[in-house]
């Protein structure tokens, strides 16, 4: 019955990293903790040449919420192939109230909060390449297994290496089971399980969602939110699983009726492996194919002879669905090979033609790049084969095949007419990204589940389909409900009640998370009711019309400055425990909130620039990550020789970075004038404009696109660019990294300073002079605990695109950054400086832009230009200070 027969035991375990002492141990009772970046070496004596799998029993150590990742390699300690990285997932479960989820004041279900469960799990590791089915090929003799934790730590209970054996077929299984359990009782009932009510899950991101478009999705309410679906794009990567507990009243033979939908990726069939009580019962369940369908459909796993039944005892059983690629791995492996060859070819073409193709030049590829045409022909053939494979697996011909065919057509055309290749190079590059994105799409296996049933022999499904009239009625109710429901207020705290009015301009999901936190963590402990509203209007007009709330969250520092210069905010510098509260933040985040000895806001988010680079491109070309500007300039010329360039935005932030690295602030000490006429500022301005004139960095570009294509393997951008890349360029997921910005060498090391943007929570002045509740609230909102929960919940609810750029220094480490990312962010964070916000702040950016363009477009002398514009800025600053009576006016 068992898939794997254990033949080998562990002979030696030695901690090569810690001490080189060998410890003898047996598999079963070995308990070893491997922390992040630690490695374990194990030796195995193999007695039979065959394919083997590795089975690891472990429990994850408490840490950040990311999945622990392990690198596994045989007999070779230094490999960095992606094939050898595996997840050792944690175990999560969703918190429920009774049967279902918690509801808000309007009867809408709130998305459940996952909690981690300490539990022991076993993962069977098979190769992720063409040997996916046969296992790691090992010869007779001693072999060394290297296990290295790349991310997070685990406690290893046992490691064993087992020969891979084929699963038995359904016929064998059912004949055995029928013989064993011949006299089963009659009258078993159909067992219904809602997919959203899961028992355990492997990854945080596997989440429930809702669809209220039809009464046929269970359960549903026309105008209330019911979380009734599991998965979608959140449940699509290999190794992610979800398990359920089902109670069987009467022992017997049951078949599955799984109601699912796959429309997340058009025309792609997805695969799941089904485990019953921890094992795959027979070969048919090893990989169940779910064809792409647009609406929820029933599926019963079957083979050529009919539906597949499983035998279940009376009692509780665990059913687990796991994402697998199975036979698709062969196709993907071939695809990766072709793509790699094409990418190599593309970079060699880049060396010859540079960034912009000159159509009037004969590049003579036949002699300069003789392998060009053969590679293209070969790739076209290989891709055609892949298309055939993909279509074979697909029930309906998807768009993926069409996209590959388009590339094949181009490659054929290029190889047939080598003299016209230059004309096609831009399109060739585009086709390469497109192929890369097809590849990453093929590897995602999204599936949405509504519910599943276990139907005994001679019984029917327990779910009846609604008729067309009830569907129409349902839709009508939902439509009418949309007129009644209040979308802006997040809770039902009434108008008349003495409540704290809080405005927030966030996404709806984030606001809901915030509301939930307020109810559970603030109102319940302090007894202060809070009316949270989702408002995007200008706060200025609200104050002018007397409709202002007491507290506004996530307000940008420029808006905050506009308010305090006009005496609309409450000074919180005398607040209770203010010194302790301020310890949560870096001083850099407070600069623009302080004015005239007072403090007007508590920081919530902080953003700053980071350096992003493509690790694969850097490795292939032997580039080193630049630490200083001099290194960056040197690297730039190397890149330009290879047809690449860098992405640095012409924003004033780049200028501020240059300025701050000269050790100069933008304003003088009492903020009565700018320092732009200082020699160092002139120098910084020169450096800034030189980037685009002398060094020829593009003035305008699409950072995301050029970064993913590798035309700009280095980009300076806000660190939220990380989220953008993660979401929009899945194919380079593992081939980019972040580093601190380039700096200037000083006596005390390298100065990496740059400007940081901050948003904060403010209290608006009102007629009643009592701000105690409001102060308690903003203290609570910016606290470690609240911010940790907020960032955790919004990320699991919305996904990585909602990752919070918190200003609280204790919270950053709880966010799902990898160790190296976190280190890079912290290194930069410690050095950021905020340029203060003067009442004429708007005049700085526009005039710096004008000055920049004068130099770069009109080729005027930087020093003349900056003096002229500095004069204009200072004049506006004087005028504004007089208008607002700052510093006595002039």
């Amino acid at each position, binding site marked *: 019955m068992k898939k794997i027969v254990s033949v080998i035991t562990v002979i030696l375990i030695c901690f090569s990293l810690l001490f080189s002492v060998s410890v003898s141990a047996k598999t079963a009772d070995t308990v070893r903790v491997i922390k992040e970046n630690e490695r374990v070496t194990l030796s195995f004596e193999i007695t039979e040449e065959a394919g083997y799998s590795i089975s690891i029993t472990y429990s994850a150590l408490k840490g950040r919420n990311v999945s622990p990742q392990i690198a596994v390699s045989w007999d070779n300690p230094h490999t960095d192939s992606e094939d050898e990285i595996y997840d050792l997932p944690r175990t999560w479960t969703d918190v429920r109230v009774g049967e279902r989820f918690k509801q808000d004041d309007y009867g809408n279900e709130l998305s459940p909060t996952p909690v981690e469960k300490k539990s022991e799990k076993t993962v069977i590791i098979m190769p992720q390449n063409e040997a996916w089915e046969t296992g790691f090929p090992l010869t007779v003799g001693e072999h060394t297994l290297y296990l290295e934790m790349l991310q997070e730590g685990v406690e290893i209970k046992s490691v064993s290496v087992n020969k891979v054996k084929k699963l038995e077929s359904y016929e064998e299984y059912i004949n055995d089971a029928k013989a064993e359990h011949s006299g089963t009782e009659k009258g078993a009932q159909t067992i219904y399980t809602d997919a959203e009510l899961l028992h355990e899950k492997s990854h945080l991101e596997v989440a429930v969602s809702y669809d209220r478009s039809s009464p046929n999705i269970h359960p549903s309410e026309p105008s209330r939110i019911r979380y009734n679906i599991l998965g979608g794009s959140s449940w699509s990567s290999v190794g992610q699983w979800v398990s359920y507990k089902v109670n069987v009243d009467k022992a017997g033979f049951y078949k599955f009726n799984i109601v699912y939908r796959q429309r997340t990726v058009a025309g792609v069939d997805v695969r799941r492996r089904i485990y019953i009580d921890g094992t795959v019962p027979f070969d048919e369940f090893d990989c169940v194919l779910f064809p792409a369908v647009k609406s929820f459909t029933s599926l019963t796993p079957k083979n050529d002879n009919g539906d597949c039944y499983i035998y279940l005892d009376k009692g509780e059983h665990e059913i687990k669905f796991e994402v697998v690629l199975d036979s698709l791995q062969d196709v993907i492996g071939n695809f990766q090979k072709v793509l790699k060859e094409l990418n190599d070819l593309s970079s060699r073409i880049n060396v010859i033609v540079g960034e*912009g193709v000159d*159509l*009037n030049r004969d590049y003579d590829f036949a002699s300069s790049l003789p392998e060009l045409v053969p590679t293209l022909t070969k790739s076209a053939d290989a891709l055609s084969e892949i298309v055939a494979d993909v279509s074979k697996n697909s029930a309906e011909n998807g768009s993926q095949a069409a996209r590959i065919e388009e590339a094949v057509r181009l490659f054929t055309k290029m190889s047939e007419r080598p003299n016209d290749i230059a004309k096609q190079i831009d399109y060739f590059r585009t086709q390469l990204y497109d192929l890369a994105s097809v590849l990453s799409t093929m590897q995602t296996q999204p599936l949405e589940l509504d519910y599943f049933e276990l139907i005994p022999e001679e019984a029917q499904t327990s779910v009846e389909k609604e008729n067309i009239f009830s569907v129409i009625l349902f839709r009508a109710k939902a439509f009418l409900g949309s007129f009644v429901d209040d979308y802006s207020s997040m809770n039902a705290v009434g108008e008349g009640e003495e409540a704290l009015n809080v405005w927030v301009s966030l996404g709806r999901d984030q606001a809901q998370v915030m509301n939930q936190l307020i109810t559970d963590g603030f109102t319940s402990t302090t007894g202060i009711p809070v009316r949270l509203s989702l408002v995007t209007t200008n706060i*200025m007009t609200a*104050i*002018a019309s007397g409709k202002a709330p007491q507290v506004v969250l996530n307000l940008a520092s420029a808006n905050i400055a506009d308010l305090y210069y006009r005496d609309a905010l409450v000074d919180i510098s005398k607040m209770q425990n203010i010194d302790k509260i301020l310890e949560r933040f870096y001083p850099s985040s407070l600069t623009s909130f302080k004015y005239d000895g007072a403090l007007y806001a508590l920081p919530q988010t902080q953003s700053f620039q980071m350096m992003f680079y493509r690790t694969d491109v850097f490795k292939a070309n032997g580039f080193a990550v630049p630490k200083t500007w001099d290194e960056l300039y040197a690297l730039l010329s190397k890149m330009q020789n290879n047809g690449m360039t860098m992405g640095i935005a012409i924003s004033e932030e780049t200028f501020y970075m240059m300025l701050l690295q000269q050790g100069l602030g933008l304003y003088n000490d009492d903020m009565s004038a700018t320092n732009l006429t200082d020699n160092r500022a002139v120098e910084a301005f020169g450096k800034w404009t030189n980037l685009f004139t002398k060094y020829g960095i593009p003035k*305008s570009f699409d950072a995301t696109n050029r970064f993913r294509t590798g035309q700009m393997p280095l980009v300076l951008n806000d660190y939220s660019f990380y989220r953008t890349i993660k979401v929009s360029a899945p194919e380079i997921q593992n081939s980019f990294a972040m580093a601190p910005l380039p700096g200037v060498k000083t006596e005390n090391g390298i100065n990496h300073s740059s400007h940081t943007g901050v948003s904060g929570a403010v209290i608006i002045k009102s007629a009643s002079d009592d701000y105690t509740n409001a102060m308690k609230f903003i203290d609570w909102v910016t606290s470690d605990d609240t911010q940790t929960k907020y960032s955790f919940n919004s990320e699991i609810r919305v996904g990585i695109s909602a990752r919070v750029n918190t200003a609280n220094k204790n919270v950053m480490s709880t966010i799902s950054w990898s160790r190296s990312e976190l280190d890079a962010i912290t290194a930069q964070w410690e050095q950021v400086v905020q340029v203060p916000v003067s009442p004429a702040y*708007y005049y700085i950016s526009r005039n710096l832009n004008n000055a920049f363009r004068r130099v770069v*477009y009109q080729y005027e002398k930087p020093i003349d230009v900056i003096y002229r514009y500095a004069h204009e800025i200072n004049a506006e600053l004087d005028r*504004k200070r007089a208008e607002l009576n700052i510093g006595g006016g002039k």
Partner: protein
Amino acid sequence: MKKVGSFFRKYGESYLMLGCWFVFFVFFVLIPIAISVVISLTDFNMLQTPEFVGPDNYIRLILSDEIFIKSLANTLLFAVITGPVGYIICFVMAWFINETGKYVRPFLTFLFYSPTLAGSIFVMWTYVFSDDSYGLLNSLLMNMGVIQSPVQWLTDPTYNFYVVIVVILWMSMGTSFLSFIAGLQSLNKSLFESAAIDGIRNRWQELWFITLPQMVPQLLIGAVLTISSSFAVGSVPAALTGNPSTDYSTHTLLLHITDYGNTRLELGYASAIAVVLFIIMVVSWTVINKALHSLGKD
């Protein structure tokens, strides 16, 4: 008393019908204009109590605000170039389209009216004139070998004014174009026959003496719409060239108002600019009105 009663019996219904519109006119047009005139005489930062400063804002506007003069010049240039040109293009296109058959006409009308129908679709021009070397126009010109490096169409003050003019002209087939077509449809055919008998020599004479005089109402409404739209140019340059544009090269009065109202939060000053713009529009409309009423006269 009796007189009033009979007056209402006689005209009451008419006033009632007029009333609905009048209420809106008073509250949403007259009162805001009056308020803005009052605010223009104060120093008002939106949050604190306004301070009466007399004509200071106007004095500053005319004597020391270079950007106001620049934006006034830009506005007038836009109005002078795009107003009449757009107006004439509108009429000529309407005239041509009217000559086509009854199946082609609605199709062409739709085609020419669609840019206006689609609202802010003009943003697509940012792709055409994108500053990137992959921008449509840049890559085309670079492929043809006309330019070597990308031209910054939208941010370089040498070009961006012309780019804005092109886009505004593209958008000028607005409501006035529709009213022209409607006007051309309703012309009295018999007048053309009698004119031919009376000795009209060519299409130009026909246009001038027969067609245009019959169309004065439509031409008038078209002129009003064109003037108000060409003085209210703002969203197009702001969306294309940024707000504010490089060295205010495409800054208009409307943008100057929003700059002071929304960014600098000086509502008194912003109102002063608005009042000036209002006066300019009233004056130019009066002039155009006079000119149009002399159509078809020798």
